[in-house]
């Protein structure tokens, strides 16, 4: 799906910020134009104005409330940029470039969402867009699963959880539960976002079971508009740009 939406630049006032877990935040900003345009799987490039930043930071949209003009993100603090984001207070301004990228295909009847860590954020927007038709399989560290589970409750039909230490759900990786779910669940698609090794493993299992799989990739980006080639990757059809041709790709195009 080529990216054809008009891109916008919008100064956005921070409405509020909330700590969800250690180093994980929920950020809501007022950006009515981008809220109206954003589709699940798309992202925005945030220019942080409270500090000397040259590059914008790409972050997936977790929710877009058209009525109130609110765009929301869930992000983990990684380095300088996200540390500055975590200090944002209501009333501060950030500048958004977006919506960027192609987004998920929304045509499936009963998709299984598979996500790990912050990958669950764009998947939440997708699950909401699927209006109860999607199930979710989430995997990761223990404390975080608690808030992801409560977020997805009521949005996804069935929620399956794996954790590294077994403290919540099944012990192990998502790949522990996936084969059984795909065999028994009559899913017509797997939609996955998370660390590359996880996506690769999930895509391999989906392929084995004959279920089509979409993956959402993360790469460092410069312009966000397909101009600088910082996020260029090899695909089955030659070079593609994650920011413009992605971030969502059919799994067989990028893991081959």
């Amino acid at each position, binding site marked *: 799906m080529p990216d054809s939406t*008009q*891109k*916008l*630049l919008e100064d956005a006032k921070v409405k509020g910020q909330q700590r969800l877990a250690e180093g994980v935040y929920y950020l809501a900003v007022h950006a009515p134009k981008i809220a109206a345009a954003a589709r699940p799987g798309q992202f925005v490039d945030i*220019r942080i104005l409270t500090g*000397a*930043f*040259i*590059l*914008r930071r790409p972050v997936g949209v977790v929710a877009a409330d058209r009525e109130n003009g609110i765009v929301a993100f869930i992000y983990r603090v990684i380095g*300088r*940029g996200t540390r500055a984001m975590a200090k944002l207070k209501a009333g501060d301004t950030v*500048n958004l*470039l977006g919506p960027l990228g192609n987004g998920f295909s929304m045509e499936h009847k009963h998709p299984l969402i598979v996500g790990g860590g912050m990958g669950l954020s764009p998947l939440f927007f997708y699950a909401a867009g699927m209006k109860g038709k999607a199930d979710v399989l989430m995997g990761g560290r223990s404390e975080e699963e608690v808030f992801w589970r409560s977020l997805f409750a009521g949005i996804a039909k069935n929620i399956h959880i794996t954790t590294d230490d077994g403290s919540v759900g099944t012990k192990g990786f998502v790949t522990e539960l996936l084969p059984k779910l795909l065999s028994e669940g009559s899913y017509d698609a797997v939609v996955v976002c998370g660390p590359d090794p996880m996506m690769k493993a999930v895509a391999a299992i989906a392929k084995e079971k004959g279920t089509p799989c979409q993956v959402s990739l993360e790469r*460092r*980006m*410069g*312009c*966000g*508009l*397909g*101009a*600088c*080639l*910082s*996020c*260029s990757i*090899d695909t089955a059809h030659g*070079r593609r740009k994650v920011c*413009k041709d992605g971030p969502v790709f059919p799994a067989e195009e990028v893991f081959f």
Partner: protein
Amino acid sequence: MDSTLETTFLGIKMASPVLTASGTFGFGEEFRDFVDLSRLGGIMVKGTTRQPRRGNDGVRITETPMGMLNCIGLENPGVEYFLSDILPRIKDEMNVIVNISGSSVEEYGELAAMLDVPGVAAIELNVSCPNVKEGGIVFGTDPAAASAVVHAAKANTKKPVILKLSPNVTDICLMARAVEEAGADAVSLINTLIGMEIDIERRRPVLGNVTGGLSGPAVKPVALRMVYQVARAVKIPIIGMGGIASTEDALEFLLAGAEVVAVGTANFTDPEVTMKICDGIAAYVRRQKLRSYRELIGKANDGFLRGDLV
């Protein structure tokens, strides 16, 4: 269009002295939602090579204090694809200056010949890309080699030939004089400065290519100094660039002796920045009660060799 900004540079009619730097603005189209491309003096397209190149593996970009490092490694679809698929799409909308990179003197000549077609406004020779191992850097740091590249290009095209100078040299004026002598119609400067970053957790260089090119506001004082020096060393016109992110930055380069300027990294920070700079220069010109921005060129540089300009 604002007549105070209009200029003719190397015989090319330009709506403004604000261009975009190679590798930072794609083919212009990518910025269409934010930039009125007809207001730019021109776009210098991504470094184009004889064969397609996939560029470097691993991390290609990182942010540094007030700047960034890149090691894209000249990824591009190759000159043939550029001519057949890209140029027809963009040529009527903007002045297209094609930045080329060869792996030999002969290849520069071949590229220049292939690009001697309608729709190409000028050719910019990239002899200074620090990311290509095959020898880009050798052409950029050796006056004789750079001159040979200029000769090869000039012999194969009627288009104006611009040589892009590398800042990674001891004496940039020596290079500038050599390429002027060899027949270059203009020089552009600066390309990126070679730098690096280390990830202390992984204890490895961050960039896939280990080193990369530093650009952005961090390099501006160095770039400005080099433009100032080159403006006193050669009579051919200068395209000034390196860290320009505001109207004030652009004005400094013009006052140092650049006839037009190019904006690179700042397009990533603010995709509308070139339009703001056009507006800003026009406002400054009005405020100073000048007829044309051209009255500013070299005005802060006593030794400017083109003092008879305007």
